[in-house]
C-alpha cells in the first residue's frame, strides 16, 4: 500500500544557522521603534496642550470679582451681552446637553445593539455585507446635513404629530443625535460580537441552546467590554456634537420641562457665540470656561467607563 506520509525526509541544509540579516534591517527596526514610541506619546502632548490652551484662555475670568463659579454652574441666567447686568449662568445649557444626550442614548443604544446582534448573529452573509455598507454610509453623512434634516424634515414632522408649537426641540435634537450615534454603536458593537471566538458559539450550540440563549447568556457577557465602549463612544458623540444640535434644538436658553421644549446645548452655545465675543472679554473667557466644563464632562464619562471596564475585567 502506498502512503504519501511515508516519503523519506530531506536531509537538513543548515542555511538558517549561517544566515545574517542586513545591517539596514537591524538598524531600521531601531528607528521604527523610536518612531512608534514618539507617535504613542504624542497623544499625551496633544491632550495636555489642548487642555492648557483652553484653560489658559478661561483662567482670568475665574479671578474677576463679578464672576462666581457657583453662579456659572448653578444659574440659568445667560445674559453675556447685557449693558447693565452681565450674567453668565450655563445651568440651562448643561440641562439641555444632558437632556438631548440622554434622549438620544435611550433611542440609540437599544436600536444600535439590536442592529449589531442581528448583523452578527442572525442575518446571512449577503444581507450583512449590504447592511454594513449602508450603515457605513450613514456614518459618513456630515453633521451639518443631519442638522439640516432636523431643521426642515424632522421639525415639520414633530409639529405635525405632536402638536408642538416649534419643531426644533429636545425631541428633534435627540432623534437626530440618535440617528448619528447608531452607526457608530452598530459598527463597534458588531466588531465586539464578532470578536467573540466562534468556538464559544459552537460549544454553546452543541449543548442544545437556542440562538437567543446563545446571545443572552454567552455572547453579550463575553462582549460586554466592547459593547460598553460602543455605548460610551455614542455618549461621547452626543455630548460633543455641535452643528446638528445647534440646528435641531431651537437654541433657547431654557431648562426643558418636556421633550417638546427648545433648549441650547453647551457646544452649540460656544459655536454660536465665540465669533461675536471680543477676544479677551469676559464673555470670550466664559465661553472658554464652558469648553473646560465640556472637557471635564467627557473626561468624567471616560473615567467612569474605564472604571466599569476594569471592574468587569477583574471579575
Amino acid at each position, binding site marked *: 500500500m502506498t502512503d504519501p506520509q511515508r516519503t523519506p525526509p530531506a536531509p537538513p541544509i543548515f542555511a538558517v544557522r549561517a544566515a545574517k540579516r542586513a545591517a539596514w534591517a537591524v538598524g531600521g527596526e531601531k528607528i521604527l521603534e523610536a518612531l512608534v514610541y514618539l507617535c504613542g506619546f504624542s497623544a499625551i502632548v496633544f491632550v495636555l496642550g489642548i487642555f492648557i490652551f483652553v484653560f489658559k484662555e478661561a483662567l482670568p475670568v475665574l479671578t474677576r470679582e463679578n464672576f462666581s463659579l457657583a453662579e456659572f454652574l448653578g444659574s440659568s441666567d445667560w445674559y453675556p451681552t447685557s449693558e447693565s447686568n452681565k450674567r453668565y449662568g450655563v445651568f440651562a445649557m448643561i440641562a439641555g446637553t444632558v437632556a438631548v444626550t440622554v434622549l438620544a442614548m435611550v433611542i440609540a443604544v437599544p436600536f444600535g445593539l439590536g442592529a449589531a446582534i442581528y448583523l452578527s448573529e442572525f442575518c446571512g452573509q449577503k444581507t450583512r455585507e449590504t447592511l454594513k455598507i449602508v450603515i457605513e454610509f450613514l456614518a459618513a453623512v456630515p453633521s451639518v446635513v443631519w442638522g439640516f434634516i432636523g431643521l426642515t424634515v424632522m421639525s415639520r414632522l414633530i409639529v405635525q404629530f405632536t402638536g408642538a408649537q416649534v419643531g426644533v426641540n429636545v425631541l428633534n435634537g435627540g432623534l437626530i443625535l440618535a440617528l448619528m450615534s447608531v452607526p457608530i454603536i452598530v459598527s463597534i458593537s458588531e466588531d465586539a460580537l464578532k470578536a467573540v471566538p466562534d468556538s*464559544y*458559539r*459552537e460549544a*454553546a450550540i*452543541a449543548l*442544545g441552546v437556542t440562538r437567543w440563549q446563545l446571545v443572552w447568556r*454567552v455572547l453579550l457577557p463575553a462582549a460586554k467590554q466592547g459593547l460598553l465602549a460602543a455605548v460610551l463612544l455614542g455618549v461621547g458623540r452626543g455630548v460633543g456634537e455641535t452643528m446638528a444640535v445647534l440646528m435641531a434644538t431651537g437654541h433657547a436658553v431654557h431648562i426643558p420641562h418636556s421633550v417638546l421644549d427648545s433648549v441650547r446645548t453647551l457646544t452649540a452655545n460656544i459655536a454660536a457665540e465665540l465669533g461675536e465675543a471680543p477676544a479677551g472679554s469676559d464673555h470670550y473667557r466664559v465661553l472658554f470656561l464652558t469648553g473646560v466644563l465640556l472637557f471635564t464632562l467627557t473626561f468624567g464619562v471616560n473615567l467612569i467607563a474605564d472604571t466599569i471596564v476594569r471592574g468587569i475585567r477583574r471579575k
Partner: protein
Amino acid sequence: MVTMAATANHIEVRDLRLSYGMKEVIHGISFDVRQHEILGVIGPAQSGKSSLLRCLNRTIDFTPDTHVSGTIEVDGEDVRKTGNVYALRRKIGMVAPLPVGLPLSIYDNVAFAPRCAGLNRKSDLDTIVEQCLRQAALWDEVKDRLDSLGTKLSGGQQQRLTIARALSHEPEILCLDEFSIAIDPVTTMRIEDVLKELRRHMTIVLVTNLTQQARRLADRTMFMWKGEIVELDTTDVIFSEKPKDQRTRDYVEGIFG
C-alpha cells in the same frame, strides 16, 4: 419510522456524504451504533472523524458552504429533518478535542445547558453540577472555587470541564472527540473508568487517535481512512492478528498513519 424496541441501533448512518465546498471529505459511509455500546472510531488525521460527529449533532450547519447527503437517524429520526434541533443536540453530549471553557464561572459552565433547557431550581442545579464534575474527575480540584472563571483553569482541567458540561444535559449519546489530547495519563485513566460506568446509561462514540484507548474501551471499533470506512468490527477482531483488511492491521500496529 422504526420503534426503539424493534431495533437495538441507536444511530443509523446511511450513505452519508459531506463536502466542504467542492471537496468531498466523507464519501458515502454507512454504519450503525448500537444501544449502550462504546463505538471506537480510529483513523489518521483528515479521515473525516470529527466531521462525522459534527454532522451528527448538526453543528456542521454553522460551517458555510457545506453539503451533506444521505441520512443519519438517531432513535429512528432523521437528524436533518428533525423539527427540534435543540432537543437533538441535548440528546447528544459532545466533547471537542480542544477544550472550550465558556467565559462563565465553573458552576455556570456546567449549569448552562440545564438552565437553557428550563431547569432553574437551585437544589437541582447543585446536584447536577456536583454529579457531572465528579463524573469528569474534576470535582475534588474545583469544589472550593466553583465561582471562579472556567477559562482560568488549566488545559486539562478545562477539558474535563467540557466533559462535565457534555454530561450536564443528561445525553443519551456521548460523543468524545480525542478527549484525552490535553489530559495527563492518570486523569485519562480515571475518565476512562467513568466512561465504562456511563456505558450502562448511554451510548458512547469515542473518536480517538490513541488506538490503545479504543482497544481498552470500545466494544466495536471503526477504522476510517480518507473519508471511508475501511473496517468496522468488534474490537477484538480489529486488534487481532487477522482483521479483514490489511490496512487495519497496519494502522493498529503503527505501520502507517
